[in-house]
């Protein structure tokens, strides 16, 4: 079977985020980037399915030139080839605009299954996978914890609220958005990194795909969130901080 995994490159989790001059996006100069964590779990799920069933895992990623490093990492982990939709300025695009690009590239691959993370760690709209499914005309399931192939499609286990789960049967092709933490991520081996260098990365653009980059949602301001509470930050050495906290919890908050 052919599985396409849509991955995104995002600022590393530990990054200190600084706004750019006009306060419209981030100062990217000092940031390091990594694969969006839920997408890493989607890739791992795809690699495990391939190991069971045989077939091919194709990675598709929309992003600027720097996304190459994230694509190479996916190839080093075991993806067979990649498509890089190389565009700057996608950060200003809404989920529909990006999903249109991805869906157009994926459609040509005629996959049996499309996997992606349930949301991105940067914009967190949690929509790209579901929108792709609608654009492609395929069934989808979200918050997927486990995937099992059946003779007439698949059965997935999805997470519901409050500790509930549900199994859902779907026909293929289907788009699944994968919950974080459902499997154990593999590391790229030295051999894998070596092999990745000779794997195909096909570069394309929005223009080549014939998809206009049009967004309905417009980001008009970006700022640090307002504190909803007056937080007392306790200073000093660890021992001083601990003593001050116990004092405050006892006599001010009366929480002890």
């Amino acid at each position, binding site marked *: 079977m052919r599985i396409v995994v849509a991955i995104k490159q995002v600022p590393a989790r530990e990054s*200190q985020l600084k706004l750019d001059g006009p306060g419209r996006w981030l100062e990217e100069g000092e940031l390091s980037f990594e694969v969006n964590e839920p997408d890493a779990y989607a890739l791992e799920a795809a690699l495990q399915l391939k190991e069971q069933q045989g077939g091919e895992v194709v990675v598709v990623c929309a992003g600027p030139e720097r996304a190459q490093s994230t694509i190479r990492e996916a190839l080093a982990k075991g993806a067979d080839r990649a498509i890089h939709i190389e565009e700057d300025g996608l950060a200003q695009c809404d989920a529909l605009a990006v999903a249109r690009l991805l869906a157009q590239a994926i459609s040509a691959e005629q996959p049996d299954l499309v996997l992606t993370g349930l949301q991105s760690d940067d914009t*967190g709209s949690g929509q790209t996978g579901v929108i792709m499914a609608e654009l492609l005309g395929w069934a989808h*399931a979200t918050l997927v914890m486990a995937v099992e192939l059946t003779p007439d499609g698949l059965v997935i286990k999805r997470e519901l*609220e409050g500790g509930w789960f549900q199994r859902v049967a779907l026909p293929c092709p289907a788009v699944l958005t994968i919950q974080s933490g459902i499997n154990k991520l593999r590391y790229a081996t030295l051999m894998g990194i070596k092999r990745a260098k000779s794997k195909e990365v096909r570069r394309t653009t929005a223009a080549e795909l014939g998809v206009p980059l049009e*967004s309905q*949602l417009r980001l008009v301001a970006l700022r640090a*969130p307002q504190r909803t*509470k007056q937080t007392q930050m306790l200073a000093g050495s660890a021992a001083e901080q601990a003593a001050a906290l*116990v004092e405050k919890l006892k006599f001010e908050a009366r929480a002890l």
Partner: protein
Amino acid sequence: MSGILVIVEQSGGVPQRIGLEALSAGHALGAALGQPVRACVFGAQAAAAARTLGGLPVIALEHERLEAYTADGATAALAELIAAEAPDYVVLPHSYQVRDYGPKLATRLGRVLVSDCTGIVCDAGPVRFERQLFQGKLTGTFEAGPAPVLVSVQAGAYRIEAVPGEATVELRRPALDAAQIRQRPEPPFRETAKAVDLSTASAIVAVGRGIGEEGNLVLVEELAAALGAELGASRPICDNGWVGMERQVGSSGQTVAPKLYVAVGISGAIQHLVGMKGSECIVAINKDPNAPIFEVADYGIAGDLFEVVPALTAELSKAKG
């Protein structure tokens, strides 16, 4: 046509809290824009849920193919309703269900959902939507495109307000044929009996990624013991299997509101915050002074948890004498 249409999520004839919060958001938007508000509920016993919503027109969509939720069924039924009613705004709760069908519904209507909003600003100028970016580290303000504008509101962003009066309920049967619905859902199930009920704990010490490795958990367990607190954890810690899933706090785990909540090495992603921000007193210990957890904390210690936590445990033991 114009107006505000609120989709209120319900289960077994009872509206969900998050659905009633969306209704409050819809009423606030309607009042600011001077536009009428109506609501829609769908699924089994939709009419019963509709009658509880107070004084506004409510459309109850009932159909045997909506009894078990599917994204395909919900999308088809609501797309038909929105096309017929032509509202300017459609307000939805940002529930697990809406995360599943909301983006699909918007796409079918040629729109993009403004998802997981924490606020809708309607002063002078165009209506603007606020939502969190970068795991809550930044807040973005957005303007949407042409009507209908679809927006989902985050749990806890709006307070539930009882609306006086009687709902005017109109029962409708959407056109749904079997071929439209491709998902075949089985009944929901629970993995393990919930052995721990964190919602009744008076104090909770919760641990997150900052703890680094499983062997370090003992530090947090000692602190919990010194406080007489239950142990809780953020999602990644439970995913790793270091702490049982039944102790997970957040949107996919339990919602808690103890007297004291101590967050250790938890940065405070939205999904965690919605599960604990109602706590009476919140203490955050994290090495990153800009971590969003500090926005909801009463007391913050920006420092190395491996130094601060043992010091705190020692101080508490000393205080007890």
